[in-house]
């Protein structure tokens, strides 16, 4: 640090705070540090609140990390001893409590006997993978194909077209001006296609234990290959793992996922987890016009009304709502459980989710209506 000796001594803790933030992976530019110092000077500062307001305004931590930011601030300026890690856990625990509040109603009326594997008890556990997967080659092929084959919608943005478009008056007239009134050929334009959002929801409850690793591999390929994709895990709570899946190296990605998810192989509260997704405006907006793929056996312990309600809400937003269940691999499979029967009318597809190959085949066909979407239950219901 060349400039440090020139700064007044009182500024040293402020600069050190910016460095502390950088160590905690907050993206802070030097320009922001300068602004922070200027802001502190402008405000006086007459109180610690001023210092905190100045830091928040100039460093602009995203609200998701707001609590972590406040904790780092307290630790740095007030010398509080609890580390940021404890603090983040604390925040997570609070979120879990909020989730519990959501799930409260469902638990109050829980009387139905569910499957032995599907339990509502919240068991927090950690899990590790080494990222090994037999289908690595198939997955990377899938990832490369994904960009071209996901469903698309017409963007508001126009791009020039050679054929099949409407007249681009602006560019045609420009050519006219350039060529002095001569019209070589009219320019055309059309709406640019954009990939639709892809929302993947992975059930990680105990009853799905055998398939979780496969699903995470597929999700990793999706996050790497698709332009706009979000991945969440559903268990006793809802966890967003898109950011954790970002690294190219699967082993590294899974390590991060296992760090941020706390309810591996626990109970099943799909209803309240999905409810939390819909209640969060940012994620609810992402679901609008998106292709939504739920990887779950839909074995909800207790009342399934909450799950039905959440799935109905999702289906109204979605471009296409699909449920992949490993149970559908069985040729005898019938959507007989009350929960499945309830959501069947709003599902677009009910497909076999027992293997990586069947899943990837389906996802690649999402853009072509009904290509692989042989919705078992629905068709057979119609036959009857």
């Amino acid at each position, binding site marked *: 640090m060349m400039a440090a000796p020139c700064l007044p001594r009182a500024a040293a803790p402020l600069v050190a705070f910016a460095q502390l933030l950088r160590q905690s992976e907050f993206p802070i530019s030097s320009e*922001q540090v300068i602004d922070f110092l200027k802001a502190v000077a402008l405000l006086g500062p007459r109180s610690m609140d001023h210092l905190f307001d100045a830091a928040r305004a100039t460093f602009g931590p995203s609200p998701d990390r707001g609590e972590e930011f406040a904790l780092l601030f307290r630790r740095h300026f007030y010398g509080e001893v609890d580390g940021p890690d404890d603090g983040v856990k604390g925040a997570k625990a609070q979120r879990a409590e909020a989730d519990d509040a959501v799930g409260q109603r469902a638990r109050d009326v829980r009387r139905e006997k569910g499957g032995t594997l599907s339990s509502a008890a919240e068991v927090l556990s950690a899990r590790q993978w080494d990222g090994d997967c037999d289908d690595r080659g198939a997955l990377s092929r899938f990832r490369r194909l994904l960009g071209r084959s996901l469903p698309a919608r017409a963007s508001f943005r126009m791009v020039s077209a050679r054929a099949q478009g409407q007249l681009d008056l*602006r560019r045609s007239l420009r050519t006219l001006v350039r060529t002095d009134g001569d019209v070589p050929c009219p320019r055309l334009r059309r709406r640019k296609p954009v990939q639709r959002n892809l929302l993947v929801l992975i059930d990680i409850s105990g009853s799905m234990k055998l398939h979780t690793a496969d699903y995470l591999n597929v999700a990793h390929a999706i996050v790497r290959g698709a332009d706009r994709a979000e991945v969440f895990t559903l268990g006793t709570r809802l966890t967003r793992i898109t950011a954790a899946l970002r690294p190219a190296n699967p082993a590294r990605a899974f390590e991060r996922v296992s760090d941020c998810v706390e309810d591996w192989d626990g109970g099943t509260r799909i209803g309240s987890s999905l409810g939390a997704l819909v209640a969060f405006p940012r994620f609810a907006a992402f679901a609008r016009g998106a292709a939504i793929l739920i990887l779950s056996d839909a074995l909800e312990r207790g009342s399934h009304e909450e799950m039905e309600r959440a799935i109905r809400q999702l289906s109204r937003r979605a471009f296409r709502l699909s449920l992949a269940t490993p149970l559908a691999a069985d040729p005898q499979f019938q959507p007989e459980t009350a929960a499945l029967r309830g959501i069947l009318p709003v599902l677009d597809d009910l497909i076999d989710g027992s293997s990586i190959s069947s899943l990837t085949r389906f996802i690649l066909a999402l853009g072509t209506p009904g290509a692989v979407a042989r919705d078992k239950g629905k068709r057979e219901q119609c036959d009857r």
Partner: protein
Amino acid sequence: MRQEAAPDEGVAARATSPESIAAELASVSYLADQSLATVIFLALRLGKPVLLEGAPGVGKTEAAKAIARILGRDLVRLQCYEGIDAAQALYEWNYQRQLLAIRQAGERDVDIYDDRFLIARPLLKVLNAPQDSVLVVDEIDRADHEFEALLLEFLSDFQISIPERGTLCAASRPVVVLTSNRTRDLAEALRRRCVYHYIDYPDAAREAAIIMLQAGDVAEATARAVARAVRDIRARPLAKPPGIAEAIEWANAATVLEKGGSPWPEAFRRAIGMLVKDEEDLAALRPELGDIVEAALS
């Protein structure tokens, strides 16, 4: 030589302290909490854009309007949407007039990249008259990533490059407010260039004060009850939590009904359509609404 937009002395002189900003905002009927006032103060003094994020209906655009009112300037609003591009945000050439001019000029020389043929869109408008306007880039999260990149040049140096004309630079730093509903994450580069504030729903006391200030003739007790009930309702998992504007409408509607002869709890219940505007939310709330209103009125 690269020009630089100088800080706006007039604005800097008005902003003497966060408290004075809060007082001025209150004088134009906008109640800001201390951190928002601090952020606006810092933005005006540092000459940086303000980025306001928050749930729909917490008063982000209202804050921008209030800033324009206290500075006595016009509000230039750029509403973002998916697919917005340079032609709608920066400038466009008036091709029809260019063509006509070429026709009329005949053999004479005509400069078709003259000011006459330039249609100024919001960003260019503000650049031309930074002393008279406040720019609001509303709901920036609806625009594409490409549009954010387009904004970067404007927000960091307050200049616009027009290939036919060169780079135009603002005479002084304009006041710019960006708002976002957080339907997606904004680029780090954009956040870095702004002074940032996340507006949360106000606490019950401040919301009651806002309702009193904005609604027509709502009694203080009503405003308090509405603020408490709305706070309770927002804590539930709704598809669309009610914003401040809805709370004000609800208070107004309930007051009107009460004057028309409905007793209090009944008036609140009947006016609920002003607050919750989603059928499923209504269905979920209806059984509990009585208790919520009772608790808020007590």
